[in-house]
């Protein structure tokens, strides 16, 4: 075997802390290492070319790169090996950046020692890497787009036009989403309906797009290329094929309720069409307000009312319609569930819902639209105030984030009010009370200036409270003009609250169904904030628009097109490749006892004959849960074999000095390892006595591996995994809990405190928690009454018997 080791400077990121030369020298001294170098940027073109040349010139067959996280550049170096003619699985990355230089920056000397130790672990692992082939899987061209707002529409159109089969699901009766409810759009003052309408009808007309409105996703299972979707299409009680949208039914209907499309500022009938440019352009009955449908909940053949059915010239209305269950096989998913606005009633000091002249901005949008249409609408009076940051940038409400669009939409509304007043020859005094004006987009600052020029007054101050005159209903706002250091207490006819954005209720539900993690602001989390802004942690699921965070229309559209392109990237070739991380059996060791059969959560293990156990590679997900059950060590996992892990553990615990304590962390690839990387990127330091070992899932850590680690000198062990709902591996958390219990019991038998083993489930945003756990684990490692050599020896001698009595 001829191993080459490269230590990367990462342009100073690593070499400013760690003595890379010394690490390279150390690597050079290891067995079978024939070449060890340090270099400024291994990932650069020059670095890659050097690697290829070295591999050819020195006949290298295994490579270790001590640099950054394998999650960051793992694929880069795999492809370099391929270019050099080696199997890509023969390279190992050692993470001396995120797990050493960036977290132990204040201890350069000891960091260098730790970097050596980590490199030694990598060398031990790579020695046992075998040449593997990626597994191939067929993938079709079916995309599920959840949410029919502008993001969902754009993604569907891009995909439909590219020839992919799109299933667009919208829970409301029409597509168009929040944008359809806007008056005009900043900074061009285009009419929202006029620019969105054509796109909506394109969706209706595209033969590749199957549109399901009034439909809700019930469940989604499976993985990339093999998602299975169950949804319900709720009844509209109107036959869409025969309805000609004449509106006679609505005229006949006696029920009037608040119109949610108009944000409650006007009424609609129980049979209605949400808006005149709705797609599909068909009437429907609201079952919560229709007299007959309400009566039918108590008495299933009630004949109450029914005026609409009598009036309908097409005979389209049927009160008998039932929900329809639809099942789909899907290859990729785009989540575009959009936003809800902040519930302004949570800020009682502004009186929304209590004072009739306090509106939220979306209501003002509809008032402007209704004015434009010449309809009778609310009178907003002469003096109008906007209050910014309602439900944004407010830690009292747990909403630290800026909603990004409110400064601009308030500015736009101010312009529109001012403009229509000018046309009508009226006078309007408009004041915008803001905390900071954030007009960051293209053409936005110019738009802000234009509004200032129109005479809208921008006053820097966040109002404390609003009070209402009970007789005149006028509103008094108390606010400090912070630039003037004086208090304004002034009366207004209307106050408009610029409410912030939050993940929609539908988005919450989809996040639950798909197990998508959320970032601290409550929006869906992208896989990487810079390089994978529209991917999620789950392969094949993408996120677009405001479901990922507050954003304006241009950004939502750009993201939507990005998701379409990311989805096409996966589906276009008709096949995808998976990591060959599958369980396999060392047949020479297996005595066909069958203990593993029931352990496998996917039932991938079965007898192929009386004495032969087989693992079905197509079913196996690679969780490693089966490994702990085998008394003969006959089951193993590709890429994370027993031998590899035990040698890694051994290397991690070697060179322990007298009195030194060491803690091992088994970090699952999905959450804990990523979290450790994030902690590194954030440069949050933790104790240096830690060694992180990457595993696919916590269930891969068998009791035997844990105990072996104690035999070899570990003083504390910490196992981290995802929360149960986010792990890709079924039942893995229970398997780990069971393994940890077994290991703890055995530790107790030899008199070792069982708090030396701990298990925790993380989500990837728990940076401080992770750091805390690292501190705690090291404290546990350093506790009084260290593990004695005698205890370790007893454990070693009786290990097999303890694990598998009889």
């Amino acid at each position: 075997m001829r191993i080459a080791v490269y230590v990367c400077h990462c342009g100073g990121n690593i070499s400013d802390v760690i003595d890379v030369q010394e690490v390279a020298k150390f690597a050079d001294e290891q067995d079978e290492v024939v070449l060890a170098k340090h270099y400024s940027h291994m990932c650069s073109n020059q670095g890659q070319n050097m690697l290829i040349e070295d591999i050819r010139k020195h006949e290298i067959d295994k490579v270790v790169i001590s640099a950054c996280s394998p999650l960051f550049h793992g694929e880069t170096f795999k492809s370099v090996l391929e270019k050099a003619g080696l199997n890509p699985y023969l390279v190992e990355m050692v993470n001396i950046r995120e797990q050493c230089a960036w977290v132990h920056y204040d201890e350069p000397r000891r960091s260098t020692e730790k970097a050596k130790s980590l490199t030694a672990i990598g060398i031990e692992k790579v020695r046992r890497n075998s040449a593997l082939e990626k597994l191939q899987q067929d993938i079709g061209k079916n995309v599920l787009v959840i949410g029919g707002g502008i993001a969902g529409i754009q993604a569907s159109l891009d995909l439909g036009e590219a020839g992919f089969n799109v299933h667009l699901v919208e829970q409301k009766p029409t597509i168009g989403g929040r944008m359809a409810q806007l008056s005009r759009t900043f900074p061009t003052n285009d009419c929202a309906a006029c620019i969105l309408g054509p796109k909506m009808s394109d969706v209706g007309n595209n033969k590749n797009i199957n549109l399901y409105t009034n439909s809700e996703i019930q469940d989604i299972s499976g993985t990339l290329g093999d998602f299975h979707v169950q949804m319900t299409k709720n009844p509209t009680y109107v036959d869409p094929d025969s309805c000609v949208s004449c509106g006679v039914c609505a005229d006949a209907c006696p029920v009037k309720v608040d119109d949610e499309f108009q944000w409650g500022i006007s009424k609609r009938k129980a049979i209605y069409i949400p808006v005149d440019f709705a797609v599909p352009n068909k009437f429907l009955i609201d079952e919560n307000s229709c007299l007959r449908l309400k009566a039918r909940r108590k008495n299933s053949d009630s004949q109450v009312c029914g005026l609409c059915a009598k009036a309908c010239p097409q005979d389209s209305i049927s009160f008998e319609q039932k929900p329809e269950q639809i099942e789909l096989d899907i290859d990729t998913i785009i989540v575009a569930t959009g936003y809800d606005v902040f519930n302004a009633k949570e800020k009682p000091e502004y009186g929304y819902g209590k004072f009739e002249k306090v509106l939220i901005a979306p209501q003002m949008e509809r008032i402007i639209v209704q004015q434009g249409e010449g309809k009778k609408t609310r009178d907003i009076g002469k003096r109008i105030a906007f209050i910014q940051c309602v439900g944004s940038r407010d830690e009292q409400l747990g909403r630290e984030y800026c909603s990004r669009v409110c400064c601009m939409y308030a500015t736009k509304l101010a312009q529109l009010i001012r403009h229509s007043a000018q046309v009508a020859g009226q006078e309007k005094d408009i004041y915008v009370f803001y905390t900071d004006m954030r007009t960051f987009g293209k053409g936005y600052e110019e738009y802000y200036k234009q509004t200032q020029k129109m005479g809208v007054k921008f006053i820097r101050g966040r109002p404390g409270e609003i009070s209402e005159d009970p007789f005149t209903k006028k509103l008094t706002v108390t606010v400090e003009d912070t630039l003037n250091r004086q208090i304004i207490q002034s009366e207004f006819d209307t106050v408009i609250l610029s409410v912030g954005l939050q993940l929609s209720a539908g988005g919450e539900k989809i996040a639950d169904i798909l197990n998508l993690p959320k970032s601290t602001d409550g929006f869906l989390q992208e896989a990487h904030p810079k390089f994978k802004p529209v991917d999620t942690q789950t392969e094949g699921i993408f996120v677009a628009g405001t479901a990922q965070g507050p954003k304006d229309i241009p950004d939502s559209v750009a993201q939507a097109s990005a998701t379409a392109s990311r989805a096409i990237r996966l589906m276009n070739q008709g096949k995808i490749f998976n990591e060959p991380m599958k369980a396999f059996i060392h047949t020479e060791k297996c005595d066909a006892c069958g203990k593993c059969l029931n352990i496998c959560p996917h039932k991938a293990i079965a007898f192929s004959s009386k004495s032969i156990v087989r693992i079905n590679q197509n079913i196996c997900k690679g969780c490693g849960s089966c490994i702990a059950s085998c008394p003969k060590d006959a089951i193993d996992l590709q890429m994370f074999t027993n031998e590899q892990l035990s040698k890694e553990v051994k290397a991690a615990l070697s060179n322990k000095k007298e009195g030194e304590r060491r803690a091992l962390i088994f970090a699952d690839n999905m959450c804990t390892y990523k979290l450790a990387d994030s902690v590194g990127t954030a440069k949050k330091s933790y104790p240096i006595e830690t060694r992180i070992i990457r595993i696919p899932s916590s269930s891969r850590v068998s009791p035997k591996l844990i105990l072996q680690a104690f035999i070899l000198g570990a003083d504390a062990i910490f196992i981290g995994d995802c929360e149960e709902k986010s792990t890709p591996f079924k039942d893995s958390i229970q398997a780990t809990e069971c393994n940890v219990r077994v290991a703890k019991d055995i530790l107790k038998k030899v008199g070792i405190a069982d708090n030396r083993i701990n298990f925790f489930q993380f989500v990837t945003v728990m940076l401080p928690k992770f750091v805390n756990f690292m501190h705690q684990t090291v404290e546990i490692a350093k506790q009084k009454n260290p593990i004695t050599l005698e205890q370790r020896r007893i454990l070693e001698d009786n290990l097999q018997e303890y694990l598998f009595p009889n």
Partner: protein
Amino acid sequence: MIKKIIIDSEGNKFLEKIETISGEKITSCDQCGVCTGSCPFTDNMDITPSNVMRKVQLGQKEVLETKTIWVCASCLHCMTRCPRGLDLSKVAEALRQISLREAIDNFDIDQIDKEETKKLPPIALVGSFRKLTG
């Protein structure tokens, strides 16, 4: 004439001191003014509560001479609404503490009008002399 503010490490020390005593991260105040808009006692103050925060941020010790810090009754209106979760009453208390320790409000008996001394409660006078001795 427009007064110039000096921003230097001396000012930073003052800020750090107030932060230590109050336990509030005063630098995180973003001067939105919601405290002022919520305060029921601004009629009796000389500078606004948010201005107190600003002056502390910039280390302007003159804040110790303001009425505002003495008018604050710790009603906590500002705290319940502060979007950065700051408790201004603690800041006012810290400023009062420093003001007391630095004896800014100490007075000289000779400067008080004879007639006025007769009207003042003797116990208050004695208390004022005593509190900074021994």
